[in-house]
């Protein structure tokens, strides 16, 4: 299912959640709506789902205008952050719910639910109640439930937000594999940029009710359209009025043309990488990211004076600078 979001705005009292947002999602991919709290990503997702109605603008699914349509009429599947399990029903009945209300025959329901439980790895848990499951299992049940009615669009609202870090990692990779198998257009809301980078085909970066950039993970990282996108997607230092990535900072012991003097304030060993914290003559702080080998070679220690160049790539050392402000949207 393709999605067209056209100039959608939404306010809650004094607060503007979405400000004339537009977005196109083509069929079949996994798109992430990425942004900090309050950026409007969940609101946008809920408007696409029909759980909220926009103040202005339109939503089209497969070309059909659904702006005022109820969730029941959109053919979507929705997975909530806290799973919204039907507590008084067994896992089996939860997954079967969508089929039961469509009055499907008993054996068809049984077959489909068994299939789905196997798909999400919950076969032995069919008779249990949701509160007996772990967080990760509940999330998988919620997914199975949403998939049971063959939605053409799957929407997930911070699906891994309430889980432990290691479970989160496993589950997100599992979701990507599931998506590759099932092929359902999927939109995922998250504030975790690592998550978005790892599993999505396209990322729409949102901030304060607007979309700042839409692109593949690589595009968004390498060519950030705005300063916000650059600083949200990865680590940055702000020096001399520019934003620089730590791994784009070249450190040498000898002054060379194009370098600036800096003092090493800390050397932090983070396992494989080493972070060098630097202080510039003007008082500005920056950090560089080097490998262990590089650090050992340079024999860096706090207090050392070194010479740094911003932008290790290319001979001129120029890194394209992002705009300060967002501009009109792109297609996902």
């Amino acid at each position, binding site marked *: 299912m393709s999605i067209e979001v056209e100039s959608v705005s939404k306010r809650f009292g004094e607060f503007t959640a979405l400000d004339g947002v537009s977005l196109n999602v083509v069929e079949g991919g996994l798109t992430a709506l990425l942004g900090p709290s309050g950026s409007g990503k969940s609101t946008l997702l809920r408007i696409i789902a029909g759980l909220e109605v926009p103040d202005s603008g339109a939503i089209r699914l497969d070309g059909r205008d659904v702006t005022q349509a109820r969730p*029941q009429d959109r053919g979507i599947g929705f997975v909530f952050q806290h799973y919204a399990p039907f*507590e008084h029903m067994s896992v089996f009945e939860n997954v079967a719910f969508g089929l039961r209300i469509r009055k499907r025959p008993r054996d068809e329901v049984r077959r489909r639910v068994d299939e789905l439980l196997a798909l999400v790895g919950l076969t032995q848990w069919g008779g249990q*109640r949701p509160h007996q499951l772990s967080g990760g299992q509940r999330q998988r049940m*919620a997914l199975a439930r949403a998939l049971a009615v063959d939605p053409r669009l799957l929407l997930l609202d911070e699906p891994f937000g309430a889980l432990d870090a290691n479970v989160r990692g496993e589950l997100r990779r599992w979701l990507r594999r599931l998506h590759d198998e099932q092929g359902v257009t999927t939109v995922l809301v998250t504030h975790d940029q690592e998550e978005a980078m790892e599993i999505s085909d396209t990322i729409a970066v949102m901030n304060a009710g607007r979309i700042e950039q839409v692109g593949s993970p690589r595009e968004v990282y390498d060519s950030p359209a705005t300063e916000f996108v650059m600083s949200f997607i990865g680590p940055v230092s702000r020096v001399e009025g520019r934003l620089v990535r730590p791994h784009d900072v070249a450190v040498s012991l000898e002054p060379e043309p194009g370098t600036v003097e800096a003092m090493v304030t800390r050397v932090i060993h983070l396992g494989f990488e080493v972070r060098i914290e630097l202080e510039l003559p003007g008082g500005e702080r920056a950090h560089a990211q080097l490998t262990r080998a590089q650090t050992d070679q340079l024999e860096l220690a706090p207090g050392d004076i070194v010479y740094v160049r911003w932008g290790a790539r290319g001979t001129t050392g120029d890194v394209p600078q992002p705009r300060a402000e967002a501009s009109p949207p792109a297609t996902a």
Partner: protein
Amino acid sequence: MRLSRSVTLSLRTVALAYLVLLLLLPVGVIFAKTFEHGFGTAWGWITTPAAVSAFWLSVLIAAIAVPLNTIFGVGTALVLVRGKARGRALLDSLIDLPFVVSPVIVGLALVLVYGVDGWFGKWFMDQGVRIIYAPAGMIIATVFVSLPFVVREVAPVLLEVGEEQEQAAATLGASRWQTFWRITLPSIRWGIAYGVVLTTARALGEIGAVAVVSSNVAGSTLTLPLLVQQRMTTSFGPQAVTSSYAAGTELAIMSLVVLLAMTLIAPRKGDAA
């Protein structure tokens, strides 16, 4: 806070003594007094025609008042918690009125509205419907006094359960009615159960309001509580005591069943599962 042993024991003793003297002892004595002259006598007193019809009248009134207030209660709880309309806060405050109005005032109020000289009394008389001094009035009185229980028990549960399950059902394609019937109702069932139990207890035990609207005629407008009162105040000698205690014990046993239900359901109210 860790209290010394002697303080703990004293507090415990005072509390338990208070409860025994105030609750247990009186109820124990009534049982004793009922069977003072033997089980047969007591049984005789609750199987008189007057007593039997009093029992059934009480049950009938409850059987009508409880479902009415349950439907009202669930519906109103939904309006108050899930609704958007603007008069909700006012309605919310009014719900508590039956809790603070004296039952005799309720009776008076109904007489003033439905009695022969009342606001609508004439109209009803013309239709041939007796409200005051008839079971209909007693039913209305009972509905009044037992009105708030289901609302007040269901509303907090609705609030606690939250809307997400209902939204999930909507995304899965359930119509509004399907969502209500399959998701909302089951999630509040223990709140409803507890509210129903409280309503039933109140309905069975009501006396003040029905005393005013009743003609106290055995067989038609005498409920069990009214029978107890009548026997105590209009009979003479030890008969008065035993006969009314017997009816009182019958009521007490009915309410012990209710109390048991309350005790079993109360802990379940907390989990919406």
